Every structure is written in structure tokens, then in C-alpha cells.
């Protein structure tokens, strides 16, 4: 594929049809992502294992957490897919729901991690995904608090930031990401984002029609706080139940206004100082 990088200005919030183009890729392929349908997840964790096998991610330690069947705890520098297990009594008091959901980096339309990275280690790819270049990252850690989902993290003993690459190397070969390939129930679906969004909407209608009134899409809306996620979800309950933030906002959204205010404040400060000097001189 022939794509080239041009320079230009990047927007920091709001709907954006073509983040790769915005990042300067010309003739980029359609933006791709994940649709994770948690209503058919069976919690087998094949996604976690396939991810680590393909990407050579080290183990995350052997700790019995006892959070239901979850012993990796959450996404981290060494866990790029994470299956949450939530045991919840049904509202009618009869029976139990055992929710399972495979979480992953959202590959945001507006990725704060990328925007704050001072070294350029974080990169918007031609596929519209967000990738850390491990040979560029200097371990400054600015990206870590920038992520509204708490996804990206520094690896202890290594210091650099790591997260899901959406299998950038596989995409380049026309292959789907390892987690989607390994998923036995098609809970993790990979494809062009536009197609996935359509599919997700019709699937949501099916799931709701079957009686799951609280089912919803999460991260699918380009009007949300991150401009829509490249990896979005069909959840059967509120996002908080799964440990997801209910209304994430890209942390760089307010940068322009913050800078404007800072500039005004600085101007006012300067003006005040100048006035003081002038006054003193009198």
C-alpha cells in the first residue's frame, strides 16, 4: 500500500471522520477496529493468551486475586486484552448473571496518550489505530494519566509504556488481530469501523428484542468524549458494572481553551506587572 505522511494541524476533540487522514496519511485504508459483543463472551480468555503469544507480552505475575475468575485484574503494560468477570444477582432476586467482557485499548478517535507524547513514540497508523513505538518511547509516562480509560501503562522494570497495537504487524499482512482470530464465539469482531458500527446497531436491536433491556453500545458514538472509540462494545449493563468509565472524555479536549485562558491570565499578569512597575515609577 502506498501512503505518505504530510504535515497538518490535528484537532483534539469532536467528531472526526478520518483520523488517519487528519494525522497526515494520504490514501489510507478504511479505519479498522474491534466490536466486542459481550453478550456472547464465554470468558475463555483465549484473547488474552493469543495476544500474549503473538505479541510476546510477558506474563503479568501469578497472583490469585479471587475476583470471580479474573486473576489478571485489568489492562496493564503486560495485559493488553483483559476479560472482566462480574457476578451479579438478577434484579428479580431469582438467579444470577455472570457477565464477561474482554476489554482492550479503545484506539480513540482523539487519543490523549498520543497527543501528550513528547517523543513521538505514539503514532496514529494508516489504519486509524494508535501504536506505541517501543524503540522510541523513553518511559516519561506522560501518556499514562492522559488516558481516560486507564489503559496504557509503564512496565515495571522496563519503564516504557505498552498497550494493544491492534496487531499492527498483522494488519500490514492483511491478517486480523490475534485476539479476534482466537475468539471462538465471535465475541471479538474485527473489521472496518463503519461496518462494525452498523453490525453492532443491528445486534443491539436483536439483544434488546430478546429481553435484555439494559443492553447498550459503549464507545460507538462519534459524538462522545473521545470522538468515538476504534474499539467499542455491546454491554449488557451499565459501563461501571464492568469497571469502565461511564462518560470518558479525552483529557486533551480542553487544551485549547486552557491555553487560551492561560494566555489571557499570562497577559493579565504581564499587564498587571507592567502597571505595577509603571505605578512604582511614578
Amino acid at each position, binding site marked *: 500500500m502506498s501512503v505518505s505522511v504530510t504535515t497538518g494541524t490535528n484537532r483534539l476533540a469532536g467528531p472526526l471522520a478520518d483520523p488517519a487522514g487528519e494525522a497526515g496519511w494520504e490514501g489510507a485504508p478504511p479505519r479498522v477496529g474491534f466490536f466486542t459483543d459481550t453478550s*456472547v463472551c*464465554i*470468558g*475463555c*480468555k*483465549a484473547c*488474552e*493468551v493469543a495476544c*500474549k*503469544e503473538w505479541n510476546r507480552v*510477558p*506474563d*503479568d*505475575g*501469578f*497472583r*490469585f486475586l*479471587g475476583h*470471580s*475468575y479474573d*486473576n*489478571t485484574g485489568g489492562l496493564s503494560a503486560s495485559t493488553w486484552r483483559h476479560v472482566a468477570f462480574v*457476578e451479579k*444477582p438478577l434484579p428479580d432476586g431469582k*438467579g*444470577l*448473571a*455472570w*457477565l*464477561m467482557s474482554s476489554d482492550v485499548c479503545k484506539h480513540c478517535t482523539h487519543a490523549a496518550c498520543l497527543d501528550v507524547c513528547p517523543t513521538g513514540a505514539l503514532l496514529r497508523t494508516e489504519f486509524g489505530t494508535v501504536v506505541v513505538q517501543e524503540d522510541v518511547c523513553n518511559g516519561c509516562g506522560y501518556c499514562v494519566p492522559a488516558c481516560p480509560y486507564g489503559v496504557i501503562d509503564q512496565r515495571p522494570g522496563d519503564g516504557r509504556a505498552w498497550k494493544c497495537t491492534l496487531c499492527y504487524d498483522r494488519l500490514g499482512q492483511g491478517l486480523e488481530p490475534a485476539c479476534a482470530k482466537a475468539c*471462538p*464465539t*465471535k465475541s471479538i469482531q474485527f473489521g472496518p469501523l463503519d461496518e462494525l458500527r452498523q453490525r453492532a446497531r443491528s445486534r443491539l436491536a*436483536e439483544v434488546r428484542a430478546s429481553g435484555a433491556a439494559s443492553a447498550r453500545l459503549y464507545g460507538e458514538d462519534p459524538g462522545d468524549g473521545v470522538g468515538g472509540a476504534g474499539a467499542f462494545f455491546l454491554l449488557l449493563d451499565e459501563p461501571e458494572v464492568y469497571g469502565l468509565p461511564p462518560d470518558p472524555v479525552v483529557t486533551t479536549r480542553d487544551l485549547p481553551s486552557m491555553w487560551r485562558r492561560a494566555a489571557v491570565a499570562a497577559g493579565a499578569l504581564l499587564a498587571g506587572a507592567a502597571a505595577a512597575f509603571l505605578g512604582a515609577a511614578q
Partner: protein
Amino acid sequence: MGTSFGRGGATTFPADLQGSDCIVIQGSNMAECHPVAFQWVMEAKARGAKVIHVDPRFTRTSAVADLHVPLRAGSDIAFLGGLIHHVLTQGADFREYLVAYTNAPTILREDFADTEDLDGLFSGFDPATRHYDPVTWQYEGMKVAAAAGQRDEEHDDWVRRRARAGHETQRADAMGSHGAVFGGRPERDETLQHPRCVYQVLRRHFSRYTPELVEELCGVPRELFLEVAEAICSNSGRERTTAFVYAVGWTHHTVGVQYIRTAAILQLLLGNIGRPGGGIMALRGHASIQGSTDIPTLFNILPGYIPMPHAHHDQDLAAFIAGDAGDTGYWGNMGAYTVSLLKAWWGDKAQPENDFCFDYLPRLDGPAGTYQTVAGQIDGTVKGYFLVGENPAVGSANAKMQRLGLANLDWLVVRDFSLIESATFWKDGPEIETGELRPEEIGTEVFFLPAAAHTEKDGSFTNTQRLLQWHHKAVEPEGDDRSDLWFYYHLGRRIRDKLAGSADEMDRPILDLTWEYPTEGPLAEPSAEAVLREVNGWGPDGRALGSYTELAADGSTACGCWIYCGCFAGEVNQTARRRPASEQSWVAPEWGWAWPANRRILYNRASADPGGRPWSERKAYVWWDEDQGRWTGHDVPDFEPTKHPGYVPPEGARAEEAIGGADPFIMQADGKGWLYVPSGLVDGPLPTHYEPVESPVPNPLYACQHNPVREGMARPENPYNPSGGAPGSEAFPFVFTTYRLTEHHTAGGMSRWQPYLSELQPEMFCEVSPALAAERGLEPLGWATIVTARTAIEARVLVTDRMAPLKVGGRTIHQVGLPYHWGPNGLVRGDAANELLAVVMDPNVHIQEAKCATCDVIPGRRPRGPALLALVERYRRQAQSPPGGGR
């Protein structure tokens, strides 16, 4: 399965589940243990099927099912019996199917007595030997199955003790591929009114298995039970089909075979066998377990389920075949299968004059299953042992007994990927810690030989749906790692070299073997395809055979496993076929190769009505094409391709010619599906609820608490907990069940050394309800000690609502969940659940009861060293369990 339908394999294949209207998963945690096959259940659900999970625990399968039905571990026959009762009393059976295709109309002998008549026993029980004489179980007017009693007169102790039932045991083992044999034609009453017809006998037998009993015995509320009953009835019949799925949750019981029999009866009543979206899907415990019974690693059968001959039992080949071959049905050709096997093994040395080397086959002089072998090790009669892909030191019931056996050998060969517990028990096993064994006193010489993984060798897997799939070597094995094929081929070669020139007749069976396989590559790896071709067999011209129907009894054909004949048809490795799903139907006949004859749904003649027309358009699968004069459809017909539906066998017909044109169960002597099994099972012609050997409650149905002919092991290493209110049983008030998690593989030999799997489930834990945790003072994430009469183990505590206490017989029963993946070695460690289990077995197939037993649970870690023995001794005294444990 074998006794009910004729072959001991799943009647269907997982991808066919997508067309089911209702799927009942019971005795299986399919989403966790067979996640890839489970995609078809999810597909069915997406198409509107109802998915029901019946299981003591709320698992990942329950989480995505439409309905979870918790029941007490060990009570499944009562639950399924309740469903049978519902079908019979509501008239919900598929009457046309039932009358035409099953033995419901067949009339039984007058002297047959049921468990309802004899308080839990069938007629023919001998209390002295604790065995059944099955003579009275026969059909009216039939020849008795075999004159085994007479033939046994001269036999050694074991055979004599087994007396008449002994021959039946052998039969039961052979049921893997075929039903029992008999002569004559049974009497039938197609109105089903005759008081002694099977249908009426069934009605009486299950008359007390009411919803009320199910509630009392299984702990399943009536409404929940009825929801299941109505779901399966409304999803069966001409237009709709229901499938049952089971795994080792049904087989690991002292009545395991009868669990499956109960499901078989239900599915025959509802007309769901041999039809798309129906059937009974048997999920195997791990890769190629189906294959290792087809070409067996078992003591009592030969390849293709030909029974292993007994000492003195079958004097020559002709007598052997006469005794075990049926006159009618496909098993009538056993002579051709057996002679072809002998030709494959001994080639030109096997000639008619020497009975085709029949006398080279070993003869059974007693049971030699894994647990008898271990007892033999402890008793000093078994001196050497090969462990290949097996880790009994943590993976078999009563793990301590296994280790005591290993510690008393002369030599032990362990072939595995890692230094598993069975290779290191002598230096760091639990008995070393307690002081019961000392390394310097263990005489076993242990040879550890590293094994190649499946990615490092060519070969085939025979998976759960009888499907052979070829895998190609991706990389050369590293270092000293070698394939099993390499190991056995070169071991055999070296043994033959050592014996070369021997005049001792004892060495002839080894020296005369056909042992010439081409080798390839730097390691001299034998060609796995050459082995597969021998398994397939060849004809007089040396060309690969296309089907087992070509096999002959005159020595002109050779075939290593008759049911696999055709897997190399046309000199092509059919098992290596991989046509993508998008290029063929859901039946996928060009993906791999399935036995028999590449059929994917067995008994599929039953998918058409007696006249050969599909029962409905929606459920059309295989049908008779009058114009072409042959059977056709989506699958290979499991029937003679040109046999007209109206064919009536002439008098005196034998083998397949004796099977009528409307008889779909072609391996059975009468061509029928057997609701009632007159011959072939040692513990009764009908399933009956007996309590597990260790149960917290008395059997509410019969005075007979347990399966009266279960196989026990009365040995000091194998004491049992008292059961069902017997004195001392209060010492072990809880029920525990053992199982697998998705994240690990069986006893952990392939997963506890893998960091990516180990981190997902890093420690042995027990699952308990909040109520039990409160009752016993167990802290979440703390420790619990679980005690039985065998020993005590410790586990981290996982408190969860998924383990719900049940109301059974008016009292609350707590169940404790114990995954069995851990042991003292590997990246992640823990006590092995198998330490807690006793050895007690199903008498038909010698499988241990691992799915339910009783225990006590106390907070905190277990004592170390000799203090552990003292704790267990305290319990044994309290429970008054005799050292040998009784039967």
C-alpha cells in the same frame, strides 16, 4: 451409547448443534471445557434455540444459557428419569418413530423382575458374587445371549467368579462399537399394550420418578423441572429436534453408563436420534480420547472394539468369532474384521493353517484396568510401567494410591514435556513430606524421556465427533524430544534386534510382527502416513481399501482398524482434507474423515420415516430417492445405499441382510434403538437411581443405596466415607465435585508450565457458597482444608453465589467445587483434588466416580508433615471407616 444404538460414539457432530431447536447440556461444562465446539451452541442460540444447562454449579456455560438448573451432584438419573416419566405420562413421545425404530413394542420374558418389584435390584442378582445373571432380562422367545456359564466352567478364578456375568462384562466393553448379539426374532406388540412390552415396562419402571421426587432427590424445584420438560417436548417431533450434550460429568460415576442410557431412552422416546439438530453429543475429555478407544489404549478391546480374547474362553479363532459375532447386523462380519487385523499385524506369517496367528494375541485372565494395575504395583505383581502423557500422581483418583504403586516398581518410564509429579514423586511427593516414604527406600528406577509436542510431529487426532484430522509437523523436535511413534517404533526395533535368532516360541509374536515402516529425516522418524495406511488396510492387490465392506475373512485383506477403513481410500490421506466451510454444507463432508465411512450423523436412516421420506422438510437429512433407487441427502447414508425402505429380510438371513429396510440401527442385531437393553450391560437393562458411593442422603427410592454391582477396591489405601446416614457419615457432611477450568489442561501437565495459562488461574482454590463460608468460618481469599477418609488438602477460598446450597430430602446440602489442575510441581502449584477421591468404579467400563463424594471443610491451611496423618486419622475414627473401606 453402544448398547442403546449400536456404536460407542457421539451420534452427531458439534457443528450440527447449530440447527437444534433446544440444547440440553448436562454433565458437561461445554463453554469452559469445549469452547471451540461451543460456538455452535451460541450459533443455535442466535437462531432462536433454547439452551439449558443442568449442572451442580453455575459455570461459564450457565452464564450464557437461557436456563440454569442446579442439581445435586450424582442425581442425574433421577432428573432424566423424571423427564422420561413426563414424556410417558403426557403422551409426548414421537409415536411413529418409537414404534418403528425402537424396541418399545418388544415383549420381555415372564420371569423378568424390575427394580420396582425387588426394591432396587433386577432379577438375576446373586448376593454371594454380587453379580447379575442376565438370562431373565432377555426378550420373550429368544435364545440366551451366550452360554457363558457352561464355557466358564474350566476357567481360572476371575473368570469363574464372574461366571455368567463375566462374559457380559467383556460384552459391555465391546459395546464401544456395537450392540449385543442374539439369535432369533423377538415378539412385538406394535399397539404397545402388552403388559410385558418394553414400553409398558418403562412406564412402570419410571412411575415414581415424578416432579415431586425430582425436587426431593435432586433439589430441583418443580417449576424449574417442568420448564425443562416442556422445552424438550415442545422442541421434539417431526418439525423440531432437541440435542443432549454430555461429557465426563456423566461418565465419572459408579452408574456412569446408566446416566447415558437414561438420556438415550429419552432421546429415543422423543425421536431425536439420527436426525439433524438432535442426537446425543458425547464430548470427550481431551484430544484424541475418542481415538484412543477406537485404536485402544485399553486392556479389554482390540482396534475397532473387537473384544480381547479371554484365557480358555475362546479356544480358537472360529470359537472366538462364533461367541462374539452376531448372526444379524453388521457385527455378523466380525470374522472379516478380526482376520484383517491379524493380517495387518502379522502379514504373511498369518495364514489359515495357523489360525492367522490368533494365538499370538494375549489372553485376559483378569481385569487389567489402570486401578487394578496400580493395586498390582502395590502388591508387587506389576514391576514396570510406561507413563505416556499421563500424570497419575496428581491426575487419577486416590493419587496417594497411585504414588504408592509407582514407588514399588522396578522401573518406570515417563514420557512427557515437563518433569511432572509422576516423575518426581520419589523425592518431593506428599508421602515424603509426611514421612510415609523415604527416597532412599524407594527402589523404582525412573527414566524420564522428553516428548515431542503435536506441532513437532505428523499424525492424526480423532476428536469428539469421531472425526480424524491430520496435523503436519511444523518444526523439528528440539534436543532429545521424540514423538511417541518414534519411541515405540525404535523400541520395538531394538527389542526385535535383541530377540533375533531366538528359538523360543514366546518370542514369535514379536519377531513375526510387520514392523517395516519407512523412516525419514535426521531423527529417523517413522512415517505416520504409512501407519495410517496400514490402519486403513489394503486388498489382495496391495491397494488401499475404500470401505470396511470390502474386508474378507479369508486372509486376502489386511486392516489395522476396521472402523477406520476408508480413511486412506484411493491412496489419499482423507484425514488431511481441509475444504473451507464456505465451500461446502454445514455437514462439511470434505473436512477430515469420520468413522464409520465418513458419516457425520449416525443412524441417519432415522431422519426419514419408515417409507423413506423426510419426517419434515425442515428436518430433512437423508432420504430414499425412488427414481435413483438409492438413499441420498446431506450426509453419507448410514445404511446400505440401495436397500429399499420396504425390504423385509428373508427367513434365515444373516449379517446386514437380516436388517429390514426400515431399521436404522444397523449395528444392532434387530436394527432397533434399544430403550431396554436385554444383553450387554452388567448392572441392569434399565437405568435406576442409586446414590453415589459417598452420599449425604439415603436413597429415597430403594433400600439398595448404591449400584449393587459397582467395582470397589477394598484396600487399606482406599477407605470410603460412610454414606447416607450410616454411623459416622456426619463427619463428612458436604458434597464435593471435581472439574476443569478453561485455563488449564486436565492434571496440569500441559498448562502449569505455561506462564500465559498459569497466570490466569494461578492457585488451587475451592468454590463455596456464602452460606457455607459463614457456617464454617471461611474467609474469602483465605484458606480452607478439605478432608476425606483418604487425606486432607488445602485450597484458597473463593466465595461465590454460583455455588447455591440445595434443599434435598428436607435438609440443606452444601456443595464444594474443586478444580483438579494443580500439584506440587510447575510454575503454579497447589494440592491436587484427586488426593481426596477414593477408587470406586462403574462396572461396565471401569471408570472411577470422580464427580461426587463427601467431605468436611474447615478453615485454615492443612497441617504439615506427620500432623496431616494425625488429622486424617482423627476423622477416620470419628467416621468409623474401616481401614479397607468395605466394598
